Structures are given as structure tokens and as C-alpha cells.
């Protein structure tokens, strides 16, 4: 067993884990955070995507021991996040889920897309979602929801450069 400390959804967690345990299994089985879903366990489906030190991360391709000292956010911890609140509303309004299995990974990835791109269009969102599989195949509405959420974020044009001193 190896001792780890993880800042999990803003709270420091100390635990002893088996080195072979994936971050996904740690989150689900040790911490009871079951929003993180496991589809393929080899990086292909995206259902297990969480945020580690600000980076979208496959929790099935990371060991719990490798998250030692890192900050991990799961969907549970993003409940009050403004971007997630906006995305949740648009997923609801656009009917962007059926069974909901892929939804946690879709939401975390959607948030990552909106953090990296201003007003992404449908083509870009489709491309960025190519690592997220929805077995209910509800892609059209998922793309619609993310594009609409992006449109709802005001983006100020960059402030003009100050005039050089004479």
C-alpha cells in the first residue's frame, strides 16, 4: 500500500492505495464518487474523464498513486462551477442525454472545450468530441447543447493596446 494525499473536489484526502489501482477505481470504490463512469478502461470512450490539475484526464489511464499531491475535480465537485451550471442547463434544454452513461465525461469534456475555444462552432465541437462515445448515439443534441452554451458566454474583445508614449 502507498500513502497518497489528493485534493479531491477541494477537500484534502489522505488514503493508502494499492499501486495498481486506477484513479477511476479510487474515485468510485474508495471515495464513493460514482459520477465518474467506466466504459472501456483503455482510453477509447471518455466516460471516465475528470480534471487533474486543470487538465482533462482519463481517470482509467492514470493511477491513484500518480495523482498524489494533485488536485482532482470530478463532476460532483463541479456542481457550483458557473461553466458547468451553464452546460447543465443547455444539456437539459437540448435533450443532450438519454441513458446518461456518457454524460459525466461529455460534460467535463464540454467544459474543457469551452475553456479552450471562444464560441466553438459545430464542426469544432464534433472534432473535439471524437474521443467521447455515446452508445445511445445522441451526438446531434450534445453538439447542439455545447455550441449553444458557448454562444451564451460573453467574450469581451481584447482591450486596445495603449498608445505608445510620445
Amino acid at each position: 500500500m502507498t500513502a497518497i494525499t489528493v485534493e479531491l473536489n477541494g477537500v484534502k484526502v489522505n488514503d493508502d492505495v494499492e499501486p495498481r489501482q486506477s484513479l477511476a477505481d479510487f474515485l468510485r470504490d474508495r471515495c464513493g464518487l460514482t459520477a465518474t463512469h467506466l466504459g472501456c478502461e483503455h482510453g477509447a470512450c471518455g466516460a471516465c474523464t475528470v480534471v487533474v490539475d486543470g487538465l482533462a484526464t482519463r481517470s482509467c489511464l492514470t493511477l491513484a498513486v500518480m495523482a498524489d499531491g494533485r488536485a482532482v475535480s470530478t463532476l460532483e465537485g463541479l456542481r457550483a462551477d458557473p461553466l458547468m451550471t451553464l452546460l447543465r442547463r443547455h444539456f437539459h434544454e437540448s435533450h443532450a442525454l438519454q441513458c446518461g452513461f456518457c454524460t459525466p465525461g461529455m460534460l467535463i469534456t464540454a467544459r474543457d472545450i469551452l475553456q479552450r475555444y471562444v464560441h466553438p462552432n459545430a464542426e469544432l465541437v464534433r472534432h473535439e468530441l471524437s474521443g467521447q462515445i455515446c452508445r445511445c448515439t445522441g451526438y446531434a443534441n450534445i453538439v447542439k447543447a455545447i455550441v449553444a452554451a458557448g454562444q451564451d458566454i460573453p467574450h469581451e474583445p481584447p482591450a486596445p493596446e495603449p498608445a505608445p508614449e510620445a
Partner: protein
Amino acid sequence: MKSAPFDYLRPKTVAEASVALGRRGANTAAIAGGQSLMPMLGLRVALIDLLVDISRLDDLKLVTETLDSLWLGALTTHAAIEDGKVPDLFNGLLRRVAGQISYRAVRNHGTIGGSVALADPSADWPCCLIALDATVRIAGRGGVRVERVADFIHDSYSTTLTTGDIIVGFDIPAPKAPLRWGFAKVARKSGAFAHSIAIATQAKDGAISVVLGAAGPRPRPMTATANQLTAPASSEEQVRAAITADFDAHFADLDAYQKRMHTANILRAVREMR
């Protein structure tokens, strides 16, 4: 998809990591991004006694421009290159290659060192680094050695790495003038491993080179093709004949469909370069 048990070490230096990887009588592996090793452990195609976590070694994270080359530490991630966080000496080629590897969550952690160490015949970095004539620096029990990436990769999943070896990084020679390049890939969907990777580049003196990946155990320079393309006023028929000659020399196992696919992909990369 659960790994068998193993011990875990997170050494503080490259030397300590090298010693740990050489532990007597043990099957060991280094882990960098884990984006290839984790599935291999889960599928139990990799069975180890000890995992050595090299992902926090600062000596493997250095990125710097030298007088005539770019140095990329082994831990440089695909996403860092995609985001333009490394100097661009190759007219955008590295960014283009990085940005289409797998998916963002994988690119956030997957490293160039891990990709070359694994030497998957369909991986993108081996092909790109061979096209740019990069060298790889390796720290091991016998000291440090430098090899051309083209010589380092022997066969599919087979390199000169032995027990205790760690890739430190890559030295990529800077072109004398803005590099002209074309990159073309055939894959079943965006982010999937390639069925064909073609990279064409043109040096300042006009000499063209072409490297083909995912067509055999390792990427190979297409020398007859490159010579034909460099010759003035080559017809497409002559270029196609040269490509066939290179297939016969380097990729003799290709079937008729694969030959057509790789030929089309090479011509696409060459057109993009021109």
C-alpha cells in the same frame, strides 16, 4: 481490465530511476504519461513487478532552442506541442502532428518520449522525428548515448533500449530555411491510430525527402520516391513507379489495396508540401 499487482517507486533523479529499473531479477517498467502503458497493464500484455514513475523528473522536462536545433525533453506532452508551448523551428509541422494524436485528454498526458520508447509502428512521433533526422539521448547503466531515431527503432515495438535505460530527450536539427512540409494520415476516425502516415519535407537546396509510417514494422525513408520528386519535371507516372520501387525495397508485405492507399497518401503529403 485490472492490472496485476506491482510495486511502485517515484525516484527523485534520473540516476535513481535508472538503478530502480535495473533491479535484479525483476520485471520493471517506467511510466511517463501512462497513456499506452496503462492499457497494456490492464490487458496484462505487460506484466511487471515494479513500476518506476518518471513523470515528475525535471531533467526530462527541459525544452530549449539551441544555436542550431530544438531540444525536447522526453516528458514533453503532445498537448504542450499542440498549444505552441515549444519553439516552432519547423514551420508548424510539430504542432500539426501533435494536435491530431488521439484526443485532448490523452494528449494532456501522453509524452513524445513514451511514444518513441514504445515504437508502435502506427504512432506519429517516430515517423515525424525520423523525417526531421532527430537524435535521441538515452541515459542508462552504461552512461549516456546518442542515436539517430532512425537507428534507435529496430522493429515494431523494438528499440535499442535495454534494462535501466531512460530516454532523456530529442535533439532535432533546425532547417536552414523555413521548412516546407506536407503531412497526410489515413485513419478510420479522428484520433485513431493511423493506417498510413506520410511526411514530405523539402530542404533549402530543394532536396525532397519522404518518410512513410504505419506501412510495416517501422517508418522508412522512401528514397527512390524522394529522388524522383527532387529531379526536375518528374511526371506523376514516374513518381508512382518510384513509390512502387520503395514498397518493394522496404514494405514487401503490402497487398494491392494497401499499396493504393499508401500511394494516395504519399501523393497527398507531397501536394500539400508544394
